[in-house]
């Protein structure tokens, strides 16, 4: 990806840094937890080796994305931003419209970067017109993971990508069982989640959506008959079908449902690639046999899911602009993506790397994610700036229906009006 000219530029700058006897320290900020941070350190080793005199300090906010975002914002206010930072898709609209990150597109030609080698949809998340504000690190479409042992015990065939909501409900009901005969259900077909990032693909796969196409309002879309039907179907898991355990995920970043899945209490779970590292140990020691499948779609609707991505961005006020851009390019390059792939946190954004991983994967997991990518769309968060406020309000929609018993049609209409007020153009936050 990095051309000969770029190599010369890098060499010259490296020699310049080395020549004055000082070490140049570049700061890389990300939200990696300790295992990812280890991988990232491996990724950085060749860069530091190729750039004597340059040290890349990794600042990993392993506590979570919220805390990471606080750190980035604080450093920007303080005028000491990191040289390169990981940009989550949800922050793209705000950060790009306010000039927080620099447009990398003018430098890509010079450095020989061919953006067509990246997944076009993933690159599109970080693009605004001709400008490119981050080089994609990786991505994941949302799919379903299922417990093969529970399917086998119930004598049910594993699901296939073309399954529909009706198929899913039938399977989920069959897998909801009282396994020890004490009169209490202790195994559930699936798990319900009020968090938007997990239920949005279900709405989409039902031909519904939260916002209208232009992203300026929810009325007419969230309360449209198709959306109400999709919301009703999804919340029926709790209110009518009883195919889910009672505890809903209240906290955003902790996974009761994942733990239930790992312990064989839940048969199917909506997931992204990001949970594979947590599932792998149990799979490796034989405690869990799992498979992945695309999220089912409503009969008559096209299969759809959402894709989440992150990319390396350079702050507009980065003190070492050229080195920062070089580092961002390196981090998104094939060598870095190959090392990172070992962690299994996401799909590489380079199409060739993703294909290579899928081809080498004998479990068939990666192929499902690749196929799901073909049905995926960019999330709303990557498109509209006030999505965070909308996302904070939307769990109330699920709570009102599942906890208060409000009719989905009424709850959707009221929520649509609330979102309209949040997105009103004349509203000054």
């Amino acid at each position: 990806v990095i051309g000969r000219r770029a190599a010369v530029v890098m060499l010259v700058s490296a020699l310049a840094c080395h020549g004055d006897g000082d070490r140049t320290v570049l700061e890389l900020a990300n939200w990696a937890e300790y295992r990812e941070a280890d991988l990232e350190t491996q990724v950085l080793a060749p860069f530091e080796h190729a750039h004597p005199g340059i040290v890349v300090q990794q600042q990993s906010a392993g506590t979570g994305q919220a805390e990471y975002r606080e750190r980035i914002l604080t450093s920007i206010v303080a005028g000491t931003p990191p040289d390169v930072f990981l940009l989550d898709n949800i922050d793209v609209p705000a950060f790009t419209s306010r000039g927080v990150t620099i447009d990398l597109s003018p430098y890509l030609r010079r450095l020989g970067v061919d953006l067509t080698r990246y997944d076009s949809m993933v690159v599109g998340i970080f693009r605004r017109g001709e400008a490119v504000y981050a080089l994609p690190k990786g991505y994941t479409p949302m799919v379903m993971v299922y417990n093969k042992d529970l399917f086998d015990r119930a004598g049910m065939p594993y699901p296939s990508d073309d399954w529909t909501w009706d198929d899913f409900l039938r399977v989920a009901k069959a897998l909801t069982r009282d396994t020890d005969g004490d009169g209490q259900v202790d195994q559930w077909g699936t798990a319900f989640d009020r968090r938007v990032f997990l239920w949005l693909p279900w709405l989409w796969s039902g031909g519904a959506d939260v916002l209208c196409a232009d992203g300026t309002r929810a009325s007419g879309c969230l309360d449209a008959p198709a959306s109400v039907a999709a919301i009703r179907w999804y919340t029926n898991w709790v209110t009518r079908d009883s195919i889910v355990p009672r505890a809903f995920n209240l906290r955003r970043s902790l996974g009761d449902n994942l733990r239930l899945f790992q312990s064989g209490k839940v048969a199917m779970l909506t997931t992204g690639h990001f949970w594979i590292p947590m599932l792998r140990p149990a799979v490796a020691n034989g405690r869990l046999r799992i498979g992945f499948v695309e999220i089912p779609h409503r009969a008559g609707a096209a299969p759809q899911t959402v894709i989440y991505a992150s990319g390396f961005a350079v702050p507009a006020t980065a003190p070492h602009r050229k080195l920062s851009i070089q580092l961002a390019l390196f981090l998104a390059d094939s060598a870095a993506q190959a090392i990172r792939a070992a962690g299994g946190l996401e799909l590489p954004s380079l199409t060739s790397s993703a294909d290579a991983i899928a081809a080498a994967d004998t479990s068939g997991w990666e192929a499902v994610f690749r196929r799901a990518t073909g049905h995926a769309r960019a999330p709303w968060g990557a498109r509209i700036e006030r999505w965070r406020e909308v996302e904070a309000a939307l769990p109330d929609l699920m709570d009102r229906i599942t906890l208060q018993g409000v009719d989905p049609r009424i709850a959707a209409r009221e929520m649509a009006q609330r979102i309209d007020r949040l997105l009103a153009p004349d509203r000054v936050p």
Partner: protein
Amino acid sequence: VKGTLAWRLAAALAAALSGLAALGVGHWAARRAEREAARRAAQSASAYLAFVAPPAAGSTGYDLARLLGFARGITTMAGWTGAVEVFHGTAPLIRTIAAPLPAERFAELQEREAALPYHGFVLVPLKDRDDWDVVGAVAVRQDGIAPDLLGIWELVILALLAVTGALAVRLPRGGTVACVLAAVLAGLSGYRQAVVASRKATDQWLGRARVLIEDAGSRAPPRAAAGLWPRMNAVAREGELVASDSGPTTVRRIVLSGGSRAEVRARFGPRRWLAMRAIPDEQRVAGWRFLGLGVALSGPALAALLGWLARARATPRARREALTAWGFLAPATLHVALFAFVPIGFAAYLSVHRWSPIEPLKPFVGLDNFSMVARDPLVWTSLRNTVLYSLHVPVAMAIALGIALALQRRSRAIRLARTLFFLPYVSSVVAVALVWQWMYHADFGLLNYLLSFVGLRPIDWLGNPSTALVAVMIVSIWVQVGYQMVVFLAGLQGIPQVYLDAARVDGASAWQRFRYVTVPLLRPVTLFVLVTGVITSFQVFTLIYVLTDGGPLHATDVLVYRIYQMAWEFLQFGGASALSLVLLVLLLGATWVQFRMLGRRVDYA
């Protein structure tokens, strides 16, 4: 008399110097604005040259002869004011007999790619056509904006400060008040310098950028102008450029999306107009008024201090004691001022501004943030929840007092029990919350498992809006009881045994001894535990954040959680600061009520 005169002279000098410092602050801000105007003009000129100068054959650098022509052309443009120089490498192009740019300065420019000062000029890099390598520099002289530090008006203010400062020694009240007024004048005068210069800086830069854009437009092929104008964004960097209708080519102020903008229209080729907008610099200097006033007011404070010292000469012992007392108090005062009052002051500043870390414009909005907070139904929900949540404090206190009474005696088992009760208080709140989250689990939690033994149906503790807050309160009681128990134990051990013995001799029962001896003597401790407990309960955040995230249906949405969400998730720091000030007032009110109700009956002796 000589002594008094010396004190007066010292006070006059202190007041005048502080006034001068305040004016200096304003002047410094004005010079800064002047420097910024020069920097932006140089940046615009650099971008203009990158647009108009053709490349050298087979290179990303510029055709030197053409670059020289365009560089000299800048100085002859109608509307361009001020001295400018363009360097190719280190060689000057406009005034060729001028000294070349020192090699080390050029190297620094290449290394840092940032504006540098250079003999009264501001130097910015001239990059190649790929915007990658620094191949030269553009320098623009900073001048014509910052007024003189001392004009007649400023000298009058300084004289006034000196006179009133001296007066403050003689007339402690009237003189100090007059000195404060004069200091305010000095602070505002300094601020005025900053505002006027900032306004001029914006106008100057926009005016210069306009002529560069118009010249670039006149050189673009007419048919290509439509596609080329977005490249002018580099000339208008730090502002914004939009296609528009024709309009005034002089800079004016407009209101856009609720914020002020400086705007100028520029013609970019035939029949194509662009509007160039920027956040007016005078909007960015609002904070300087506080700095200038703060510096100026240090004069009256010093004058008042000198006046006190002059008067205290008659009572050296009192003076020595007062100075010693202040010496001991100073570290704590400084600490509180720095870590409590400064943040509170900053929160107050934020609360009257629309402030976001990524928003370049942070306009003054008066009480709009308070109004927004008052109109937000979730704020009222969180307020109600916070008040309800604080009701766990008396419950925890009652339990803590009961345990303290039970664990008064000294034995190894009791010491162990005390440690066990205290353990939750020193444990990580996050760890505690995670353990309780699992204990509260509707299907697998320990609590529901225990309830099943007595035939009760399982409760979705954290998932049900009617039980979630109570569930959080239970965790909070579990955490707080140990600490409160320790404080009560200390209070109980401070009660002289002789009072209890006397009551026993008088025939008082255990309950009567507790009711009429222990409880009254524990009132100071009770007041302390209650006040700190209520304050802590109003500030609850971590438990909520981990256990429920404010849900379900905002049943556990409390004020601090709302402040956090407004600030860090929605980036509405103004609203969040307004809400935090509301919380401060509520806490002050709650504490005052508690002191009124219990404080009068407290005997600290």
